[in-house]
């Protein structure tokens, strides 16, 4: 494989590039097993291998890729990438610089796991899903049960023209159950441990077993049915307590994406949008209350955003993003960090596979825990709502105006969690919302979630990222029933 990597690099340099990096994926394996109402749903295993070469002239990038693992494919991709970079250079009148980051030579990173999920017999996996899905159907109002499992294995070789090289094997797994109850056009959904596929982790089959899906399913089914008859969530400005998985998504949308430096520098403007932040805000802007502490940590054990080196060969690191409510850092790459005068990249440059160019992606962007238990978060609330498990999410193209819906809500009355309410929505503006956070849950409320579906870039890339989040309490939030 080293020979193939070197072939790609040399081809790009000979074709006029000043820098080149090559990623060979051999292979990316993916397994998806799902059961829907007792029937198989797109049971799939896939294998994809190939090479991607990124070339840089003094002024522009070019990227080319082929779904083959041969020296010819590496050579032609290197040549094409350089040819493209040269053509693109004509539109650019300023130099393209990169940070000088410590190189790695012969690095090795491997996911730590106990049971390799690809070695577990498929019948064992399907049997687990069949049991979990069947247990969702506690009442006839549960019209659809769905249980799913996914696993990815990526074996990657990286090298660049500065002499960096490493190889890695990263394994991600995840699973979940979901019940949909329907009555007279009223559609209610409940899932566990999270919506949109469940929870995910870097690790092995032992994580799937730890989820206890068949045991959780009956309660999921019962709650979906209960939502059919629950009252609509009340409308008004109120105290909001968010569950951990919903707060993880709040962090993702209103902090993670907003602090991506490529968005801040308008490199994503034409598609996903930009950010309300500017480079001048670093170290200055008040993002939220003093209780708000956020880090981007690619060294966190088990996170979907954990790795040895990023796709520019920069070692994984832990970067403070918000400290005591103040913006202190951003998610950066070698190019973007250099553009704002930073000496080093924050090592957040990742690509979906060999066939995509590296972009700034979240690693594990975590809200640090505070010191309140869940009962303590609720006990001071005379009238409010507790919301959990995401159902819908949307935010404007500068990451300011957001609206989230959750699967379930509960009234809080006189310091206690009370009745279930349906179709809850809450909305706000990012800095005001985070400034209203007046209590943060402790470690017992904190969970490291895996989010497998973060979209960005053109052509589109899906990243798997991590978010550690506790529960937390927010004051004077606009809440309503959809």
């Amino acid at each position, binding site marked *: 494989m080293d020979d193939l990597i070197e072939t790609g690099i040399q081809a790009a340099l000979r074709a006029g590039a000043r820098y080149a990096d090559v990623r060979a994926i051999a292979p990316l394996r993916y397994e998806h097993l799902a059961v829907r109402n007792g029937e198989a*749903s*797109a049971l*799939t295993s896939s294998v994809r291998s190939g090479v991607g070469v990124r070339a840089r002239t003094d002024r522009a990038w*070019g990227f080319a*890729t*082929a779904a083959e693992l041969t020296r010819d494919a590496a050579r032609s991709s290197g040549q094409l990438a350089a040819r493209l970079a040269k053509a693109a250079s004509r539109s650019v009148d300023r130099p393209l610089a990169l940070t000088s980051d410590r190189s790695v030579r012969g690095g090795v990173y491997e996911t730590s796991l106990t049971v390799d999920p690809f070695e577990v017999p498929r019948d064992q996996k399907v049997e687990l899903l069949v049991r979990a899905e069947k247990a969702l159907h506690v009442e006839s109002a549960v019209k659809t049960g769905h249980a799913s499992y996914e696993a990815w294995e990526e074996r990657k070789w990286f090298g660049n023209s500065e002499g960096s090289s490493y190889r890695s094997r990263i394994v991600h797994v995840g699973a979940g159950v979901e019940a949909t109850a329907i009555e007279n056009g009223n559609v209610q959904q409940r899932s566990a441990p999270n919506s949109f596929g469940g929870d995910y982790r870097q690790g092995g089959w032992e994580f799937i077993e730890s989820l206890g899906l068949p045991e959780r399913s009956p309660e999921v089914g019962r709650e979906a049915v209960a939502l059919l008859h629950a009252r609509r969530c009340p409308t008004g400005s109120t105290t909001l307590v968010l569950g951990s998985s919903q707060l993880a998504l709040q962090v993702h949308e209103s902090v993670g994406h907003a602090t991506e430096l490529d968005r801040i520098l308008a490199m994503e403007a*034409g598609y996903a949008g930009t950010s309300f932040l500017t480079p001048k805000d670093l170290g200055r802007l008040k993002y939220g209350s003093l209780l708000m502490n956020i880090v981007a940590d690619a060294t966190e054990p088990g996170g979907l955003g954990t790795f040895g080196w990023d796709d520019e060969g920069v070692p994984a690191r832990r970067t403070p993003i918000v400290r005591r409510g103040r913006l202190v850092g951003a998610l950066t790459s070698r190019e973007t960090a250099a553009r704002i005068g930073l000496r080093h990249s924050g090592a957040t440059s990742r690509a979906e596979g060999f066939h995509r160019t590296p972009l700034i992606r979240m690693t594990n962007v975590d809200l640090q825990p505070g010191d309140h238990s869940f009962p303590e978060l609720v006990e001071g609330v005379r009238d409010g709502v507790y919301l959990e498990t995401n159902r819908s999410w*949307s*935010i404007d193209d500068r990451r300011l105006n957001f609206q989230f819906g959750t699967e379930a809500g509960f009234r809080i009355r006189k310091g206690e969690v009370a009745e279930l309410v349906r179709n809850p*929505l809450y909305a706000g503006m990012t800095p005001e919302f985070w400034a209203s956070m007046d209590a943060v849950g402790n470690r017992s409320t904190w969970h490291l979630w895996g989010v497998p579906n973060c979209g960005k870039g053109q052509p589109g890339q899906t990243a798997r990222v991590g978010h550690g989040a506790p529960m937390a309490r927010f004051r004077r939030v606009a809440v309503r029933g959809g």
Partner: protein
Amino acid sequence: MASSTGPALEQLLSQLPQDVAADVRLVEQRWGTMRFANGVIHQPHLERSRDVSLRVLTDGRLGTATTSDLSLGGIAALIASAVATARVAPREPRFPGFPSPDGDRARGVAFSEATARLSPEDQVLLAQGALEGAESAAPGSRVSGVVNVGSEQLTVANTSGRRGTTRRSVIQSSVLVERPEARPPVSGWSESAHWRADRLDPEELGRAAAARMPRDPPEPAKPGLYRTVLLGSAVSDLLYMLGYLGFGGHAEEEGWSCLKRHRGEALFPKILTLEDDARTPATLPQSIDFEGLAKRTTPLVSEGVVGEAVTDLVTAARLGRSPSGHGLPPEAPFGEWGPIPTRVLMKPGAASVEDLVRDTRQGILVTRLHYVRVVDPGKSVITGMTRDGTYRIEHGEVAAPIRNLRFTESILRVLRGLEAVGKARGCFADERGFSVVTCPPILSRSFRFTSSTLF
């Protein structure tokens, strides 16, 4: 275009175990994506790939596997993997097997060899044209966008003898022009797609995006219910979501389709006619679906009357119908989505955009929607933001730009309130032309905006 099957697929089918039936897809793609931002081409991308997707049926059970490894060993591993998956799958008792070649013959569709063969340098020139068009119309503004060009050949074969091939050529481009230094910032947008590169002019898109950018600072606007003119890009988002929520096979089968209770009902005004037609040159044409069935015109809404949901082999069997030719690749994630209309066309009316505005005493004009997500599928309630050119309409004229608004609204309610349909249709597609909506602007008497943002 003659229908043929790659020798690799014939060889693959011949290697299947005797008790196994199957269908197989070979997808060969070449794409270029010239992405620009801050006035320069910053992420140019070239991509070549060949992937095989195999679905097997054995003992009433289905399993799927895909690979990019077309070597003998890779194909053997693919078969072993798909069969192993099928052997442990729950039974699919209603699945009728794979269709024979009888009956529907796929008609040839439009394809542009010149578009498929466009060189990397020519693609870069197209992106430069978009930059120059925008710069000439709005000097000093910040310009971003993309030009996607490429082609895909899909070959499908099955053990019942069906063979089919279709080729797609695509150019898709969008341009964003901004003045980020304005307080609040302003922006304008333009996008289009075509199957012929010489019929889409990125330079003109650049000029159009610049023209859409407000000259005055956007004013705050109060959320509420407004008569609203939605330009084509915004309409395409609504229709795409309606395809999934109202005409998707899984939604129908599982009972959460927002249109399940309205089939055959005159739910919408007569001026609304929607169909799914993959063969017309008004879309990005393809002649067969991913199960090898010939594409044909499928009525979705006929003069206001709601039609049936679309199906593939599996959902048709579960619903007791004939498949409508909307099979997506059977593997995840497509297999989990189920069949959806991917070539939606809205029948044009007679009104110009000016007419739509003239018919509105007080309302809002929306260029484009952003981050559209489902809030309540059973009621077709979605949320999202307006973006890149939102205006107040007063007394039949576009009065002033306004800050962007969040909407939380039922698609059915918007379309039931349809008052006029524009005459000029645009073609709106994703970056690879997988899903396409061809539609004009519309005027609806009812669109609910629920909050506003700062720009």
